[in-house]
């Protein structure tokens, strides 16, 4: 009963509907739970340009799962991954042979805190951006009515993940 630490990265098409994406994430979470695995953290790298075309796609959505468990959960997890047609690529790596569960639990707690902090911060920023855009809109309407509405919405939405986000971006729990 050795417990090891693994890391799996998988990629979905960039244009897959959010509903299906969440479904896949939930399914994999369930597999992990069933096999007595413990998810330490999950990262969503968002959409990223691919180095080469895969199945006619040029962009992909990446996820990282960092988890802990007995060696046999790997075959179960990968079996499920293979069954999901939407997953275009995956890779599982062993991170360490022996695991200190206490350290793991600590990390989980830290991740949850980061999550909460990030979401709170993101909400604030989105609100402020919305307010600024509204102010600028009224100012501009006085000065130059010809200004297109296309510029402002872009500012407010500058928050979410960009296409070239680096791999060490936010963690996300579904």
């Amino acid at each position, binding site marked *: 009963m050795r417990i090891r630490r693994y890391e799996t*990265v998988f*990629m979905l098409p960039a244009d897959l509907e959010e509903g299906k994406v969440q479904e896949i994430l939930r399914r994999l979470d369930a597999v992990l739970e069933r096999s007595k695995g413990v998810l330490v953290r999950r990262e969503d790298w968002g959409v*990223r340009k*691919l*180095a*080469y075309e*895969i199945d006619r796609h040029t962009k*992909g959505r*990446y996820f*990282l799962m960092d988890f802990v468990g007995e060696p046999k959960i790997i075959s179960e997890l990968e079996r499920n991954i293979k069954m999901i047609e939407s997953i275009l*690529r995956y*890779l599982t*790596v062993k991170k360490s042979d022996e695991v200190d569960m206490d350290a793991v639990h600590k990390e989980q707690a830290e991740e949850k805190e980061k999550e909460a902090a990030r979401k709170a911060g993101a909400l604030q920023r989105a609100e402020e951006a919305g307010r600024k855009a509204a102010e600028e809109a009224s100012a501009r309407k006085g000065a130059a009515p010809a200004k297109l509405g296309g510029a402002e919405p872009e500012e407010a939405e500058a928050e979410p993940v960009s296409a070239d986000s*680096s*791999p*060490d971006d936010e963690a996300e729990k579904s």
Partner: protein
Amino acid sequence: MRVRDKKQRRKVYFRKKVCRFCADSNLQIDYKDSRTLRYFITERGKIIPRRISGNCARHQRKITMAVKRARHLALMPYTNLEI
């Protein structure tokens, strides 16, 4: 022809380059880190040989493995077609 090769080889062997990973033990080699890995491939996408990169054997192997993994995940190209 053989005598020529010996003379040339002596010069090339004179590398004093240090492996940058051995020097700084905090540097990690990670297949996910395409930015760092990019330094070890050519413009065409080929892996740079140890003679040139200056890596020690151990780290060169790790780099190679990381690049190959990154290629599989489309984080790095297998090849860049020349223009």
